[in-house]
Each structure stands twice: as C-alpha cells, then as structure tokens.
C-alpha cells in the first residue's frame, strides 16, 4: 500500500487498526517530499526531527489504546506565514530569512493538541502577496500537474504539497483567494472560513480585516476534519468569535436553492472554464436542486475596492519590519537610512509595490478619494450578497476565470496578476465562507468550482460540496 495515496480518514482508520504506524506514515511522506521538492519546491523548510518525534508520540498513543483523535499521527504541512514554535518562519521574505518562531499559532497549537505531525513549512508569495507563488524570495513553486505552470497563490506551496501527495492536508491563509485559487489550480479542496471562525493569532498580519486561515485537503471530508480542529473562539484573537450553534441541517438536494450570479460569466472568462463550471451546475440541477439566477451588481467594483483596502492595511501591518525589531538589517549612519536600506533590500518588488500603493491611498489628500470610497464600495458588495442570500442557500461560481498559467506569463504585469482574483476577493470583503473543489480538467489542468455560503454556515458548504464529490 502506498501511504501517501490515503485520505486523512483512511489514514486514521489504518492507524487505529495498526495496519501501519504513524512513523511509517510520516517517513513515506518525508521521502516523497525529498523526491519531489527539488522540482515542485512546495516546502521551504522540512521539519524531519520534530515530525518524527510527533509521529512516535502518536504511535505511543495508539499502543496505549483508547480514543485516538482524528488528526493523531496525520502528516500535515503549514504555510510559512503561520508560526510553528522553534521552526523558521520566513513569509518567503528575505527580511525574515532567519526568523525562528518563538511560539505556536493557535491553529498549530490545536493541531498539535490532537497529535498531528507537522512535516514542514510551505512556500508562498512573499507575505502572501500574489496569485502564483512566484513572488517568493526563495523561488517559485511549480504545479505538480504541469511543472511549467504556476500552482496559484499565495498558498501555492500548501496546495502543491497536497496535490503532490507530500502531505495529507495543509493549512493556508486566504486574504483575497489565496487558499481557493491554488486549490483550483492544483485540483484539491480549499476552504476560506467565515471571517472570525478561525483564530489569526500567530498568522503574520497582511490585511487584517480580510485574512483567514483555512484547510487545503484532498477531499471535502478531510477539509472539514481540519476546519473543525482549528475553528472556534480564541482569547488571543479578539476578532475570533464563538461559533454559533449549528442547526442540524441535512442536505436535501430537492430543497437546495443555488444562486448563479450573472456577473460572473462575462468577458474575460476562459470559454473552457465557463463550459466545465456550467456543466457542474447542471449536475446539481439534474439531481433536483433549484437553480436561480442572482445578481451581484457591484462585482466589477469589488476588485478595485479590494486593491485599495488590501494594500492600505498591508502598508500599516508591514511597518513593523523596520530593520530594528526583526531579522534582516542594514547598518547605516542615520536611522532613516537603516529603515530605507533594510526595507528596500529586505522586501521584494510586489511587497514594496503594495506598501507604496497603500501609503498613497492613505496619504493626506487621497484618503477620501481612495480609502474611504473603497470602504463604502465594500458595503455595497456586502449588500449585494445579503440580497442574493434572501433567495438562495449557496452561490456557485468558477474559482478562477483562467486555467493555471505558465510560470513567468503574468509576473511583469501586476494588474494582469490581480485580475486572476476577480471571483474570489468579494468573498473576503464580505467576510463570507467559500470553498473551492475540483470540477473537471482541461487536458491535465484542473479547475475549481467555488461554493459561497452564508455567515458561519460552513456545514452547508461542506454538504453541498460532498454531494458534488459523490456525483463526479
């Protein structure tokens, strides 16, 4: 049996039955990482020793008998902007090249509490700014389905690790699509939870009103297992909230009302993507679901509003990397020069571009016209979703307007890179949960169906996604 082929649930059952040990499970994944990482470059750091120690502990737990938590002994990967105590955490930036995390992020603490095995830290666009994982200071991750193409971003390393069978599941972070886009490009399942459902403590802050940590996995069930392990109120993150009591909602396909926003199927979408996503929606309809055309009239303004709000928040959050408090530092004569040199050389091009964009939008004379206007448009985007959800339970869209593109194709034109996020950013502006799951392929290139749900109704998304998974 090849242990890297398993799902989390299958691995859990295997461990319980003692078909194999957690050490064997861990070693097979570490071996696979060593074989593939050179070409895929999903991992920035491999934590062999601590992973094997955690696996050993899980085996002791199995030997003692009794209840085995579902994630005990399960090898997982963590995006390198989430802290794992004692392991380097670089955000794929030169400015944090040698930064070692002094504590565990709450999500990591929760995984470890169940006995999960953290294999290592995965590559990303520097500080999660990007849609292709090409903005990493340490080199791009490649799509395991086609090594000449990008895995999507910014959680490209996590998605490639799962797609390349180098981990049974992974954590990513999603500010404007950074879990869902790579899940789509790599043919795996990724969830951006409702804002506040998962603690951000120990996640390097990028755009705080948009960031959420979420799971990337092979199946809907696996994504649900990881989501349930990491979600819930955390006193260390004041924006996390206690999850509301979930009504006992069971999917009855004939009662499911699915919204399809007409603004998502317009110029700019790859015809192949449109065809496959529409046939996925048709499958729900044939199974008895009610398909309703809905309108989200401010869709075309969501992306420009996002590219004001996101850089504005980023420019404030990244002020802490000043060459004094953390890592990379250039020693210069004046303090101003320490800042200019450390940040100028420590940050890559995209990070500096966003900091400048945000600084401009927040500067005197432009604040009203850009930042405050964008915040008002954000309200409009939220109202659109509120209106749509009066009529439907979930909304189906493509995750991305395009298929995985070639490495280098968009990197020199930032606007063309930003446009890849056109179907995902509105969800972060609104704070809603959304999942991307595989819905077909063009040649060997996978593509994703995005299921958008209502606040804290991740359970509905999971059930609707699992239904489609069984159909296909």
């Amino acid at each position, binding site marked *: 049996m090849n242990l890297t082929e398993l799902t989390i649930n299958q691995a859990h059952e295997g461990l319980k039955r003692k078909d194999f040990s957690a050490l064997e499970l861990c070693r097979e994944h570490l071996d696979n990482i060593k074989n593939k990482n050179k070409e895929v470059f999903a991992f920035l750091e491999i934590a062999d020793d601590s992973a094997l120690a955690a696996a050993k502990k899980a085996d002791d737990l199995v030997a003692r008998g009794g209840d085995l938590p579902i994630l005990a002994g399960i090898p997982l990967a963590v995006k390198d902007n989430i802290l794992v105590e004692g392991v380097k955490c670089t955000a794929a930036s030169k400015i944090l090249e040698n930064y070692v995390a*002094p504590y565990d992020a709450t999500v990591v603490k929760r995984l470890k509490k169940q006995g999960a095995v953290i294999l290592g830290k995965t590559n990303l666009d520097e500080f999660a700014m990007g849609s292709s994982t090409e903005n990493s200071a340490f080199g791009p991750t490649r799509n395991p389905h086609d090594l000449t193409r990008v895995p999507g971003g910014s959680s490209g390393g996590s998605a490639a690790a799962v797609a390349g069978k180098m981990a049974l599941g992974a954590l990513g972070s999603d500010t404007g699509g950074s879990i869902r886009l790579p899940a789509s490009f790599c043919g795996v399942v990724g969830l951006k939870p409702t*804002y*506040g459902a998962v603690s951000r403590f120990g996640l390097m802050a990028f755009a705080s*009103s948009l960031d959420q940590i979420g799971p990337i996995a092979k199946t809907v069930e696996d994504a649900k297992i990881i989501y349930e392990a990491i979600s819930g109120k955390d*006193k*260390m993150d*004041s*924006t996390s*909230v206690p999850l509301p009591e979930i009504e006992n909602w069971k999917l009855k396909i004939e009662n499911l009302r699915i919204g399809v926003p007409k603004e998502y199927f317009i110029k700019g979408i790859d015809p192949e993507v449109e065809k496959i996503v529409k046939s996925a929606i048709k499958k729900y309809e044939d199974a008895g679901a009610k398909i309703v055309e809905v309108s989200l009239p*401010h869709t*075309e*303004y969501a992306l*420009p*509003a996002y*590219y*004001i709000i996101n850089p504005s928040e980023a*420019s404030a959050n990244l*002020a802490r990397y*000043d*060459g*004094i*408090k953390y890592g990379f*530092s250039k020693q210069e004569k004046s*303090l*101003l020069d*320490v*800042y*200019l*040199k450390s*940040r*100028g*050389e420590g*940050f890559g*091009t995209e990070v*500096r*571009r966003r*900091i*400048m*964009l945000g*600084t*401009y939008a927040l*500067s005197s004379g432009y604040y009203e016209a*850009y930042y*405050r*206007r*964008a*915040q*008002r*448009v*954000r*309200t*409009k985007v*939220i109202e659109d979703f509120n209106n749509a959800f009066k009529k439907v339970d979930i909304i189906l869209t493509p995750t991305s307007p395009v298929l995985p593109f070639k490495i280098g194709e968009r990197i020199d034109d*930032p*606007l063309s890179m*930003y446009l890849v996020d056109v179907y995902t950013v509105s969800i972060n*502006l*609104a*704070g809603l949960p959304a999942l991307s799951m595989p819905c077909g392929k063009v040649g060997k290139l996978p593509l994703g169906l995005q299921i958008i749900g209502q606040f804290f109704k991740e359970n509905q998304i999971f059930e609707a996604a699992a239904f489609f998974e069984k159909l296909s």
Partner: protein
Amino acid sequence: MISKKEVQHIAKLARLGVTKKEEEKFGNDLSAILDYIEKLKKVDVTETRETSHPTSIKNIMRADEVSKFEKKLIDGHLKVRSILR
C-alpha cells in the same frame, strides 16, 4: 500618472528604499493600477456607510498579562539595535 518625484515621495513616506531604475517601473505600475481603480468613481456611495470590518463586534477585551519571555536579558535589560547615536 504617478511621476518619478511622486514615487520618491511615497517611498520616503513608506520608509522604502527604491533604486533610480525602479522609480520608473514603480511609477508605471502604480499608474496602471490607479487607472484601473478609477472605476470606483462610478459607484454612487453618497448614502453609503463605510465598512472597515466584516463582523459587527467591538470592544473585545482580555486581561493584559505579560507572557513568559525567553530571550536572554543583560542586567535585566533586553539588547536591541541602537537607534540613537
């Protein structure tokens, strides 16, 4: 259009070093992005309130406790880089 001079000004406000060669590239990039963002002017937001945060929570407090600090102290002090000369 963002001029080189404006790039220099923004970069200084943001405490970012930018080389002469980069000034032009950043100027062009920022101009293209801002042109695209101009679209926002088409939305009537006169009656619309601002959203700075997707959930309506406020004033969530916890006790302000000092965490255990593992860094080595020198005579009870923490050593950092000098910022005053």
